[in-house]
């Protein structure tokens, strides 16, 4: 049975086909609005994430399906000490497909080992968040019209920022892309990601601590939030939080056709004044995300329309 745990579970061709399907849904949503009738999506969120959960639920409802689930561990049996394996085994008897988010890395692998239905990883700690990456990829294809030959700047928390790791993994599979790794010293991209997906593939890259120095060269600026929950130490969080903020002023140096992306939620790393800039794509990303989740649900449920 197919699951989606990591973006690399999908080949480039599979991702392209998913994006084609998402395009088709966007072009004619009515064609799909009963395609998952009588199917149930369970959204098991052991850690709160309103945006991702609502995106999944909206996707399933737009396909004519139904949803059930919980939005935090406190309202699930895990609060009583039930294992992930047992929860998933039980819920897979009540649903046709499961989207799960869990604070522990690798929890969806256990889910996939025990589920009787497809499992979608909706985020496992600081590890993977493949449907965010699918949303990112569709945004890039729609907004820029290509997946290759791009100068991609990733900025902020590159150490714990799982969306950045997955984006680099995914975009390193397309030709002629270059990466600009923009972060403070403490939040640099981990060596294993850099080695495996950039250096070993001979992909050009530049590491810098200054957004201003490279913003003019970029096709994509992918901003990330410095997340409180990834730090053990409040002092470190407060010190690094404000390091890399995108302002109207900095946008003046950016190219006219550059796009600004962000996995959201934003705290203060992009000034709200930037929102009205036509290059700001982060709210569109959430819409693309819903369509990609619709396409993914159809694929994993093997529904042909």
């Amino acid at each position: 049975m197919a699951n989606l745990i990591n973006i690399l579970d999908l080949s480039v061709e599979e991702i392209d086909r998913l994006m084609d399907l998402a395009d088709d849904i966007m072009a004619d949503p009515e064609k799909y609005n009963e395609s998952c009738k009588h199917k149930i999506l369970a959204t098991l969120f052991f850690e709160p994430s309103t945006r991702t959960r609502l995106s999944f639920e909206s996707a399933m409802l737009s396909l004519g399906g139904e949803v059930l689930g919980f939005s935090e561990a406190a309202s699930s049996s895990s609060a009583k000490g039930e294992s992930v394996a047992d929860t998933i085994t039980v819920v897979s008897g009540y649903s046709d497909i499961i989207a799960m988010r869990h604070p522990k890395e690798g929890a969806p692998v256990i889910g996939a080992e025990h589920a009787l239905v497809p499992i979608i990883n909706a985020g496992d700690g600081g590890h993977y968040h493949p449907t965010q990456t699918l949303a990112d990829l569709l945004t890039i294809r729609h907004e820029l019209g290509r997946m290759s030959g791009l100068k991609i700047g990733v900025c902020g928390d590159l150490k714990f920022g799982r969306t950045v790791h997955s984006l680099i993994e995914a975009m390193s599979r397309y030709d002629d892309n270059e990466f600009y790794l923009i972060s403070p010293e403490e939040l640099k991209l981990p060596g294993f990601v850099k080695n495996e997906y950039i250096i070993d593939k001979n992909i050009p890259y530049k590491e810098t601590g200054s957004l201003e120095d490279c913003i003019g060269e970029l096709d994509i600026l992918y901003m990330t939030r410095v997340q409180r929950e990834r730090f053990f130490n409040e002092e470190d969080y407060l010190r690094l939080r404000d390091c890399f903020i995108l302002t109207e002023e900095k946008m003046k140096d950016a190219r006219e056709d550059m796009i600004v992306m962000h996995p959201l939620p934003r705290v203060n790393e992009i000034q709200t004044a930037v929102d009205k800039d036509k290059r700001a794509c982060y709210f569109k990303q959430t819409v693309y995300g819903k369509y990609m989740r619709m396409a993914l649900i159809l694929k994993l449920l093997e529904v042909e329309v």
Partner: protein
Amino acid sequence: MNIDSIQNGFVIDHIQAGKGMDLYHFLELDKLDMPVAMIMGAFSRKTGKKDIIKIDGEVDINIDAIGYVDPGATVTIIKNGQIVEKRKIEEPEILTDVIYCKNPRCITSTEQEIRHVFRLTDKSRHEYRCIYCDARG
């Protein structure tokens, strides 16, 4: 001490010189209630020096653990004073409950009765990663 002197047991041979004690501790041979001999710096035609461990008794040896510590070693199994099998050890693709994930954010730190499984992700770097969280072993 000769192989012949063991009636039923194992000889772990061709251990890289200096790694014998690592393997001894890794396999927890100190906990065995049987004679165990450690020969360090023995002559080797191939490498000059090698370590050898002899275990005089029947016990379940974790071959994967030997492959993890020293993939160049060999294991000879002796029964009734005769060599019944000589096995060349290779790096195992999968390690189960040989090493343990130390990442506090990994699901293995909280899930009940979960086995710790690592996959060989880079043979040239002898690199194993947890199948759940991808942390290095």
